[in-house]
């Protein structure tokens, strides 16, 4: 038999199947297809159960185009040989040569229209070498379960849209990855800014303002009164400040600022105006040391560095640039009133 069925063959088969006259079958088949054409002209679509839907699409240049969408039953029947395959993800180490060919006969019966050829358009170079039949064996071995095939509404046009969709998803993933990278970088920059702040470089200008506002009230007083300062230290600090001290200690342990005796150094609020009542200690500026670090070491408060500047006016020319090796006297701070 030829691999072609004409309208005459169709009518003959119909006549045999339905026990009808050849002439009647001929007439019926002719009417059948003539009516499909009429239906297309009239309604622009004809739906026939078991066969499919014919549609008339008018294109931009006013040209009619007949499109046939096969019925799901027809589509599945035709694709039956491959219906139990579904797309599978290949693992990195999949070598097509390793796959045994036990089930290849099944494929051999099925492949009628043309011998398989490797579709190398979108494959990697190593895959490109693999011949079609081997690839089919892979699919046989990897997806042995009988499953529904990946559905496709139309033939060629849909292939393209599927590809586009895949590409669209790809770009979406890339976009997400870029976004994530952006967030990570942003967090890094923020961390960098705040870490930089701890060196006092950002806060310095604010501190200078504070320093300029307060100089009148911070008159150096030479007399040392330890009893008063002690009592005030204990009374001035309310509960809130106690908790602050705890936090400061915690932070201190985390950032590892060098302190000699953490327990003895009390947090001094920068909201109180202090007078200088003597020298607490002397410190030599080393590399990496800043006035605010020194202030933090002795007062647990970076913002109190202007007092150090005030007390060391004779050695500090520029508070923003204290040369390494400068020896500073640390003032003992007592609340002014």
């Amino acid at each position, binding site marked *: *038999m030829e691999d*072609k*069925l*004409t*309208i005459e063959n*169709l009518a003959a088969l119909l006549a045999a199947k*339905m026990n009808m006259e050849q002439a009647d079958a001929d007439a*019926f*088949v002719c*009417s*059948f*297809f003539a*009516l*499909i*054409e009429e*239906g*297309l*002209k009239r*309604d622009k*679509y004809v*739906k*026939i*159960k*078991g*066969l*499919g839907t014919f549609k*008339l699409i*008018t294109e931009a240049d006013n*040209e009619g*185009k*007949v499109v*046939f969408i*096969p*019925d799901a*039953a*027809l*589509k599945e*029947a*035709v*694709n039956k040989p*491959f219906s139990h*395959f579904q*797309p599978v*993800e*290949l693992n990195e180490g999949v070598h097509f040569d390793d796959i045994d060919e036990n089930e290849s006969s099944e494929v051999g019966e099925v492949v009628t*229209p*043309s011998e*398989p*050829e490797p579709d190398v358009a*979108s*494959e*990697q170079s190593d*895959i490109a070498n693999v011949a079609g039949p081997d*690839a*089919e064996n892979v*699919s046989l071995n990897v*997806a042995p379960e009988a499953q529904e*095939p990946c559905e496709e509404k139309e033939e060629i046009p849909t292939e393209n849209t599927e590809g586009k969709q*895949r590409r669209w998803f790809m770009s979406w*993933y890339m976009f997400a990855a870029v976004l994530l990278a952006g967030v990570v970088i942003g967090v890094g920059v923020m961390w960098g800014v705040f870490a930089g702040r701890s060196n006092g470089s950002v806060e310095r200008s604010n501190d200078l303002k504070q320093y300029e506002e307060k100089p009148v009230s911070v008159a150096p007083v030479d007399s040392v009164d330890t009893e008063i300062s002690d009592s005030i230290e204990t009374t001035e600090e309310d509960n809130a400040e106690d908790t602050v001290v705890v936090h400061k200690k915690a932070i201190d342990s985390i950032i590892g600022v060098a302190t000699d005796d953490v327990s003895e150094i009390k947090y001094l609020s920068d909201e109180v105006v202090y007078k200088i009542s003597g020298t607490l200690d002397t410190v030599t500026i080393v590399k990496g040391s800043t006035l605010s670090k020194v202030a933090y070491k002795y007062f647990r408060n970076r913002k109190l560095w202007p007092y150090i500047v005030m007390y060391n006016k004779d050695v500090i020319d520029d508070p923003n640039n204290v040369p390494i090796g400068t020896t500073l006297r640390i003032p003992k701070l007592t609340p002014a009133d």
Partner: protein
Amino acid sequence: MNEKEFIDALSAKTGIDDKRISKLMSSVADIVSSNLQEGKDVTIQGFGVFETKKKMEKIEVNASTGKRILFPPKLLVGFRPSSLLKERINSVLNG
């Protein structure tokens, strides 16, 4: 034109009753389907050709993840309208 409208119209045209028409139509569909399954094209002169096309298996590589997906081969039903059908339909469309 849906299934019922089509049967009614065909019945009016051929003088065969609806039930018989329905059976005949499903027979035609069966014959077309079985021939397509055997790999035979169904050629209707002056109307068009029903044919099967084999779409080869292919491996698609997702560029962003590097995943390789193997798509199985597929047999698809296609229909090519004959040039006569196209002409007749366009003559109706354009005037």
